[in-house]
């Protein structure tokens, strides 16, 4: 009986861990950790100047990337922001932001996936990663 419990709980832990790692192995670019690391490099080159190292943005100019509805919301919309850029008055936490974000369609699918995975798992955000096939799908609908 006791033995049975131990085996079962071990089994549970294994299943639990498997369930946790499943989406990670599913991303074409390898694990989320690798994607986050690559994403940080892209962020530092192309996003950091405007959205800042800690994602806090610039008051009244560039919005923060901390738990916003775009960052945590529908991935299709988020991917669209990167591919198309953005030029519409927006409000985050009661503050309005006025500046334009250019299209970053020059980034490859995997690079967009990586940078968004990094953003969705940094600055206090805890959301799932983005994979390159998701970017590919959105890019296809934009043409």
């Amino acid at each position: 009986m006791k033995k049975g419990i131990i085996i079962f709980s071990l089994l549970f832990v294994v299943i639990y861990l498997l369930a946790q790692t499943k989406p990670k192995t599913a991303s074409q670019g390898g694990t989320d950790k690798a994607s986050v690391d690559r994403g940080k490099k892209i962020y530092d080159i192309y996003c950091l100047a405007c959205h800042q190292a800690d994602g806090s943005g610039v008051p009244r100019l560039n919005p923060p990337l901390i738990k916003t509805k775009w960052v945590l919301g529908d991935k299709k919309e988020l991917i669209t922001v990167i591919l198309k850029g953005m030029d519409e008055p927006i409000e985050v936490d009661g503050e309005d932001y006025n500046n334009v974000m250019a299209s970053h369609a020059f980034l490859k699918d995997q690079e967009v996936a990586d940078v968004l995975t990094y953003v969705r798992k940094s600055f206090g955000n805890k959301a799932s990663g983005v994979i390159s096939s998701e970017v590919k799908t959105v890019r296809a609908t934009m043409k």
Partner: protein
Amino acid sequence: MKSLCLKLCLIFVMGMSGIVQAVANDTTKLAEKNGQRDVDNVVLKLPAGFGAVTVVDSLARNRHLAVNSNGDIYVKLARLKDGKGVLILREKANGKAEVVKSFGNYGGTGIAFKNGYLYTSSDSGVYRYKLNERGEVISPDAPETIVRGLVAGRQHQTKSIALDNAGNIYVNIGAPSNSCQVEDRGKGSKGKDPCPILDSAGGIWQFKADKPNQSYAEGIRYATGTRNIVGLDWNNTVNELYAMQHGRDNFYQNWSELYDSVESAELPAEEFLQIKKGSNFGWPYCYYDQVQKKKVLAPEYGGNKTTQGRCEGMDTPIIGFPGHWAPNALLFYTGNMFPEKYRNGAFIAFHGSWNRAPLKQKGYQVIFVPMKDGKPNGEWEVFADGFMGVQEIAAPRDAQYRPCGLAQGKDGSLYISDSVKGRIWKIIYNGK
């Protein structure tokens, strides 16, 4: 047996979420703690003999300010507070000021007194209010529209104003663009040639100070090739207009094959301009490189960081300040309170940088330029510092205060407005 396992699993899951919960609580606590940094530890650093009085601790989204002949402080707000865009403050005997009146249903930046009128600006126009013999605004709810219909995009949309002694008002019209690219701020995107923005923005326009309802057709493009100006003032010693232009951004993000992130943080200069009718400072085709000390052809127009091309002979600044410090106010000091060296010199309030990252942000200070006959007369120096509240910041949101406006008091004191919490300081000189 099965139910026992379920129970165990449940305990396990609950334990896990408990840990997650605890972590979340800690982060909130930390955030709350950080949010409480404004327990005031900000002491402005000033030259010997000067002192700062906090006239008002926190007000609203302050932009420029002006002091009336009766000593009242008029503050223009970027956005309405309780439906009003102009606040009048009066100092009490203890040096603290109180809001005594508010009016104006528009946000904006510019505010100035001239010849018995108060002039203010929104992002698209200029208004004026007649003052009575006691210096009070007669009809706060019925301003006269002086200029209307100016371009106001989603960048550089604020309008600053300055008045000369010949009945003219000067209005900065910022370009709604970084460098007139086909795709604004787009990587490798070429500049439009000619840049169509220059027809209605990217310059300074002159209007009549007393003629109602003027639009572009009645105005004169007084100077062109300025990307964005916030600090603007008339110098009465030489009867000329001066301005501080915000240099362009994103060299590294857009042209990484030419500029590294350090060059992109330091270049181009924030330009101190002496403006004559017909001046052309070259934006978007040119920028001023304060290290090479020349106007350089912008990468959007085929520049390679050193060639001048069409920028040869372009009007240059009288000083090129370090990049991205964001000069938001310019004031020529004409008072008698400060020592002689300050007379007719220029105070410049830098709002502080944002696109110097990954380098530390800089420029959250008020500086002084000694001037003689309208030209710099000696090196510029830091006048008021310590606005950030900490030694170093990586992101602009970490600055506790950001200087945004300057005004001279009746007694020759200097007022500084802040845009973060809306603080106003009065700088006085009590040295001998």
